[in-house]
C-alpha cells in the first residue's frame, strides 16, 4: 500500500460521487470514461492497449503491479489510458523481467494513478448505472476544487470523440519478410500482439492509417485485410466502413473487435453501447457452428446488434454471459470477424487458431 502523506488522488464521477485515495504516477488531471476490467493479471498490456484511449481504467483485482513493468508487455508504444484506478499499487514488485514499479511506469508515461479506494463499490456503481465520464486528479498539497473536477468530467462526451484518429499510425509501417503473403492491417488502434501473431505465421503486415482509402489499400496488393481493434464508438467510423465494403470480394477480410463492428456497419448493421462493456479475460463464447465454448479475452464497450445484420452475414459466435453477438461471417465471401481478442495479451490463448484460419483463407484465395 502506498503510504499516506505522499501524493494524493481524487476520483470524481459524473454522477457526483467522489472517491479519495492515494496518488501515484504523474501529478495531473485527466478525464475519461470510467470502465473496469476483471483480468487479474496483464495490467501493462491493458494500459498500453489503444482500445482504452479515452478511458480511465479500473482493475477489479485489488493488487496491481505485483510483477512490476517490463519491456515486453507493450501493446503499443505508450500508455493509452488517461488514468488508472486500483485498490493497491504494489510498491515492491518481484519478477525477473521487472524494470519499474507501477508508480514509476505511470510516472514515465505521464499518467496519473489512484489507489486505496473501495474499487469494488465503484464497479458496482458502474454495473448498475453504466460507464460514465470521470475525472482523476493526482496532486500533492491542497485538494483541488471538486466542483471543477466534476465539471471537467461532465464536459466529456466520449461517444462524440474520434479516438481512432489519435490511436492509428500516421504513416505506413511494414513487418515481416519478403516472399510471405501480405496482410494490409487497417489500424484503428491495433494491439502489437495482432501484428506479432500474423508475423509468427509468416504473414507480412503493412500497417495502414485508419482512414486509408480502398484504393490506397489495394495499391499495396495485399493478400488479405485485417481491420483492427480500437477505441471509441464505431458509429463515428462511417468512412472506414465504406472502405471495408469496397474491399468485399477482393480478398479475405478479418475483423477484430472494433474491426468486427466496422464490418457490421459496412453492410448496414447497427451497433449499440453496452451498459458497462465486456472487459476481462474470462468471457465464455460459444461457437454457433460447432457448439464449442471458448474462454476469451475481451475489451469492448459497444456490441453488434445481431438483428440488424443483413442476410449475407451469419452470426457465428455468442457471448454466453449476456448473449450478445461475438462474431459473424459472410455467407459466400471469405470475410469473418470476432468481437473478442484472439491475440490475447492479456488473456487466454485459446482463440489463436483464428489467425491460422485467416492464414488458410488468405492462402486458399
Amino acid at each position, binding site marked *: *500500500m502506498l503510504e*499516506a502523506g505522499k501524493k494524493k488522488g481524487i476520483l470524481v464521477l459524473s454522477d457526483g460521487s467522489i472517491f479519495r485515495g492515494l496518488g501515484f504516477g504523474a501529478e495531473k488531471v485527466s478525464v475519461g470514461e470510467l470502465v*473496469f476490467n*476483471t*483480468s*487479474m*493479471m*496483464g495490467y501493462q*498490456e491493458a494500459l498500453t492497449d489503444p482500445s482504452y484511449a479515452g478511458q480511465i481504467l479500473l482493475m*477489479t*483485482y*485489488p*493488487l496491481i503491479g*505485483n*510483477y512490476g513493468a*517490463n519491456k*515486453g*508487455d507493450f501493446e503499443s508504444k505508450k500508455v493509452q489510458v488517461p488514468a488508472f484506478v486500483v*485498490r*493497491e499499487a504494489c510498491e*515492491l*514488485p*518481484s*519478477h*525477473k*523481467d521487472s524494470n519499474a514499479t507501477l508508480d514509476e511506469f505511470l510516472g514515465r508515461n505521464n499518467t496519473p494513478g489512484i489507489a486505496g*479506494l*473501495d*474499487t*469494488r*463499490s465503484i*464497479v*458496482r456503481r458502474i*454495473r448498475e448505472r453504466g460507464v460514465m465520464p470521470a475525472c482523476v486528479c493526482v496532486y500533492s498539497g491542497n485538494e483541488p476544487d471538486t466542483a471543477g473536477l466534476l465539471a471537467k468530467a461532465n464536459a466529456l462526451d466520449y461517444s462524440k470523440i474520434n479516438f481512432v484518429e489519435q490511436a492509428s499510425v500516421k504513416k505506413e509501417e511494414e513487418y515481416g519478410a519478403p516472399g510471405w503473403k501480405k496482410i494490409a492491417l487497417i489500424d484503428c488502434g491495433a494491439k502489437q500482439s495482432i501484428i506479432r501473431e500474423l508475423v509468427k505465421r509468416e504473414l507480412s503486415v503493412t500497417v495502414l492509417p485508419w482512414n486509408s482509402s480502398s484504393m490506397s489499400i489495394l495499391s499495396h496488393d495485399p493478400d488479405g485485410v485485417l481491420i483492427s481493434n480500437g477505441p471509441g464508438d464505431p458509429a463515428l467510423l462511417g468512412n472506414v466502413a465504406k472502405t471495408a465494403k469496397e474491399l468485399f470480394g477482393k480478398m479475405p477480410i478479418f475483423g477484430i473487435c472494433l474491426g468486427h463492428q466496422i464490418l457490421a456497419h459496412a453492410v448496414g448493421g447497427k451497433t449499440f453501447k453496452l451498459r*458497462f462493456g465486456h472487459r*476481462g*479475460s*474470462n*468471457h*465464455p463464447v*460459444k461457437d454457433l457452428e460447432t*457448439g*464449442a*465454448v*471458448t*474462454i476469451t479475452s475481451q475489451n469492448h464497450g459497444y456490441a453488434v446488434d445481431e438483428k440488424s445484420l443483413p442476410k449475407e452475414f451469419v452470426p457465428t459466435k455468442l457471448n*454466453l*454471459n449476456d448473449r450478445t453477438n461475438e462474431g459473424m461471417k459472410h455467407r459466400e465471401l471469405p470475410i469473418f470477424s470476432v468481437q473478442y481478442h484472439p491475440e*490475447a*495479451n*492479456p*488473456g*487466454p*490463448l*485459446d482463440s489463436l487458431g483464428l489467425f491460422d484460419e485467416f492464414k488458410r483463407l488468405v492462402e486458399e484465395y
Partner: protein
Amino acid sequence: MPKRNDIKKVLVIGSGPIVIGQAAEFDYSGSQACKALREEGVEVVLINSNPATIQTDSGMADKVYIEPLKPEFIRKVIEKERPQGLIGTMAGQTGLNLTMQLAERGILKEFGVEVLGTGLDAISAAEDRGKFADLCKRIGEPLLDSIAATSVEQALEFAKSHDYPFVLRPAYTLGGTGGGIARNEEELRSLVEFGLRMSEIGQTLIEESVLGWGEFEYEVMRDGKDNCITICNMENFDPMGIHTGESIVAAPSQTLSDNDHQMLRSAALRMIRALNIKGGCNIQFALNQKTGKYIVIEVNPRLSRSSALASKATGYPIARVAAKIALGYTLDEIDNAVTKTTPASFEPALDYIVVKIPRWPFDKMPDAVKYLGTQMKSTGEVMAIGRTFEEALQKAVRSLDIKKAGLELDAKFDWKDRDKVLSIIKEPTDQRLYAIYAALKMGTACEEIAGLSGINPWFIRKMEKILEMEGKIGIAGERLLSDKQLMLEAKRSGFSDRQIARIIGRKEMEVRDARKKLGIIPAYKMVDTCAAEFAAKTPYYYSTYEAENEAVPEKRRKVIVLGSGPIRIGQGIEFDYCCCHASFALRAAGVQSIMINNNPETISTDFDASDRLYFEPLALEDVLNVIENESPDGVIVQFGGQTSINLAKGLHENGVRILGTQLEGIDMAEDRERFRKLLNELKIPQPRNGTARNIEEALKAAEEIHYPVVVRPSYVIAGRGMQIVYDEAELKRYISEAVDVSEEKPVLIDKYLENAIECEIDGVSDGKRLFIAGIMEHVEKAGVHSGDASCAVPPITLPEKTQKTIIDYSGRIAKSLENIGAINIQFAVQDGTVYLLEANPRGSRSMPYLSKATGIPIVKLATNVLLGKTLDELGAPKEVPQLPYCAVKSVVFPFIKLPGTDIVLGPEMKSTGESMGIDFDFGRAYYKAMLSAGVNFYTKGRVALTLAPGDKPHAASLAREFDALGFEIFATDGTAAAIGDAAPVAVVKKLSEGDPNIVGMMKAGELDMVVNTPTKGKLAFTDGFGIRRAALENGIPLITTIEAAKGIIAAIKARKTAELTLEPMNYYTGRVGK
C-alpha cells in the same frame, strides 16, 4: 449435449474416515455431487464408512450404505442395487483406488456398471507414473527426468546417472504417504523400501529435484465435448519440496505475469485434454522464476483438497459441476449457481486475495518429527479472504485458533536466537511463517530470507510491510486510539484489535471501543465469482476495511451458528456436521441461518449450506463484528466444539444472547471445582479429584487421591496435555515439563479408575426433561480418551440396572446445569458403581455417529429446542430408543504419517477420524468398523503377543481364544511364560534380545497380527515402541489394548459363524423400538 437418459441410478463412493491427507473436503465434494445428481432425478446409492459426514445423512442419497470401503463390500452393493453408473472421483485417492480395483477385478464389467465422468483410462494415465511420463512426452510437456521403480536396485541404478537429491512419490497413495526427499544413497534406499510398501501397486517414482522452484496449481474442468476452463490458479508460498497440502497457499497467484499465467494455463488445458478427463482435475507445476522454465509435477484426475479450496476461494461449485458433467451435460448447459444468470462455462474473476494455512497436529503430537516435506502431516486448514495480502494472511493466522491474534510471536520459543530462527527458515517446520517474521524483526534482509527459503521475495516484502505497520502502531502507542488514518491503515493491514492492544499495552475492548468511536468498522464484501461484474445472489461474505457494506441485514428472525474452524485432532468433521445440522434446522424452521466459519474443506462453508455465510476467523472481534452487522435474535455456540464454546464468555460479556445452555451452566461444567461441588450436592459419585495451582498442591492432592491419577490442565480440547500418572516422580516431571501451572491455570487431578468400563450418553434437554438418544459403551477401558475409543450402541455389557443409574444421573445433571440443547455426559463403571466423569453441555464428537446409528436427528432436535420448542412438541421419544441391532464406532490414527510417534492410546486424543460398522450383533459390527478403520485383520494366521506386566493375567485366555480360532501363536519371553500351557506357543525374541526377533519377523512378512499392550506410564524409546512402529510401517494389524484384542476375537468368531448383513441404513433404523 443434454443429460443422458440411460443413467437412472448411480453409485457414489465416499472417502471413509478422515485421515491426514484426506479430510472433510470429500464430504463436501461428495455431498455436493449427491445433491447435483438427485436434482437431475437420478437415484443415488451411496457407500461410505464414515458416519460423521453429511454425505451419509438419509436425505443425501436414496440409499445410504455405511459399510467398509472394500471391493468385496462394494461388489455386494452393486449386485443388490444394480446401478448403471459409478462416480469415484469425489472421494479422493480412496475413491480412485477403489474404482480401479473394481475395474481390475471385473466387477464393473460383470454388472455393467459404467464409470461416469473421468474414465478408467484417464485415471490410470494420470496415476501410473510411467504412463504419465509417456503422455507428457507425447504432447511435449516438460517433466523432470524420473523413473518408476519397482525395486531398490532399479532406484540405485537411476541414482548413478543423476544428481542427488531426489524426490520420491509412491504411486496410488494419498497425501504423499511414503514420499520424501533422498539426499544420499542411504536415504534413498530406506525411502524406496518404505514407498514400495505403501504403494498399492508397489511402485515409486524417483525424480530429479526442483527444490526451491515456485509451485503453482491450476484447477481445471472439462466436459465431454472438450470444452475446458480453469477455475482458479493458486500460488504456493512455500516453494517446491513441500507438499502443497503443507504449504501456505495464495489464490489467485500473486507473482505471475499474464504471460507466465497463460503459459501455465495453456499447458494445463493441453494436459486435461490429453488425459481425456471429464470433470475436474488439479494440475501442479513447478516454475523456475529466474529462468521462466516450467515443469509439470502431477495431475490429480479427481476432486481434491485443492479443488475444495478453489471452490471456496472462487465461489465456483466444482463438485456440483463435475457431477453434472458426469451425467453428460456440457459446461454451457450448466448454470452458474452463484449468479444464476450466467453459465458455468466461464472462469471466475476474484477481486480479493485468499490465503490458506495448514493446521498441524504437533500440539497434540509433541514427539512427532516437525519438519515439513513431501509427506502431509497437517490435519486441516484455514482460509481467509481480504482485500490486501496482509489482511488475508493475518486473518488466516487468527483463524488457526492457536492463540495468535495475528502475525505475532509466542513466548514458547526463543525468537531471538538468530541461528535457530534461520535454520527453521531453511529447513522448514510448522513455525516457518513466524520464523520469517522473527528474522525480519532482527533486521534480516528480505533477500537473505528468500535465499534460504526459496520463497518469492514478494511474500516476504508483504510480511515486512506488516512489520512496518507493527512498528508504526508501536510508535503511535495510545495516540493510535484517536488517529483515524493510522487506525484504518492498521485494520487494512489485518491487525486485530487484540493484536493492537498487545502492541500498545491496552485491553482488547479498549481498542475496540476506540476504533468504533473513530467510525472504523468492517464492511462485508460478497464472494460472487465475477468481481462484481454481475449481480449475484450468493450470500457469501468476508470482511474488510472499506467503504461499502454489501451484507445488508435482512429484517427477519435470524440466528448465528458459530463453526468449529480447522480440522484438528480432537475437533474434527463431527463438529462441522453438528453446525451444518443446526443451520439446516434453523432454515427448516423459517429462521435465517447465518454461519461463521473459516475452514475451506467443509460443508458448513458451502455457499448454500446456510442462508448466509461469513468466511471469517472465529475470534471474538470478528464474531462480534458480524453480530453487530446482523443483530441476530441469538447465537448458537454449542456445536462448534471448544472453538465456539471458548467464545461464549466474551459474547456474554458483550451482551450477546446465547441460545441454549448459558455461560453459567457451561462454566459450572468446565470448572472442575464447581463441578465437583455440584456432584457432591447431587450425591452422584465421581472419581476422587482435586485441583492444584502449584506443584506442592499437586503432590498433596495426588497423595490424598492415591495413585494412579489422571492429570490435565483445565479448559482443553480433547484431553490436550492429559496423562495418567503412576507415581510422584512422574507427577513432578509432568508438572515441570508438560504444563504451566498457575493461579489462573490450575491442573486437575482425578483418581484413575483402573479396569473400569467407560460409557457416555448424548442427549437433548429442553429444561423440562432430558431425551437420551443412546448409551454408548466403550470397548477400551476408562483412561483411553473417549475420542480414541471404539464404542458400541446399544451397550455391550452394561446391566439394565447400571443403565438406569446412568439415565437417572444424566437427567439430574442436565437439570442442574440448566442445560438447554445438546449435552454429552461421560461415565466410568467400576465394580457396579457408576462414576460421572464429565458433562459437556454442547454438541459432541459422538452425535453424528449416534444420529446415524439411531436414525434420530439429535442436532436438529437440539436446535429446535434452542428456538423454544419442547421435546414433547418435537415428538422426541420418552425413553432411550431400543436398537435391535448394533452400531460400533471405531477410529483411525495418524501415526503412519508422523514418524517418531508412538502408537499408544491414553487420555490424550490422537485419532483423526472415525468409521462405523453396523450389523445385528457386536462381533459383526465391530468387524466392519475395524475393517473400515483400516485394520485389515485376518481370520487366521500368525499372531504375536507381547503384553505389559499388568496385562499378563489375560495372556492365557487370549492365547486360548486365538488358538481355538486356528491362529499360530508367537509370544515374547514373559508373555509366553504367562500363557504357560494354555495354548501352544513359540517364543520370539524382542528387538533388544538380538536376532532373529519379532521386528525381523514382521519385516519378513511372517506375522499377520500383533497384540502389544504398552507398559504403563509415558516412556521414551522402548522395545514396545519399536515393535509398534514396525507393525505400523509394515502394515500389520496392531492391537494395543486387551479389550480391543477381545473385541477382535469376538469379531473373528462372528465373522466365521454368521454372514455379514448388507443393508442400507434405513433398513436398520426402521427397526428402532420394534
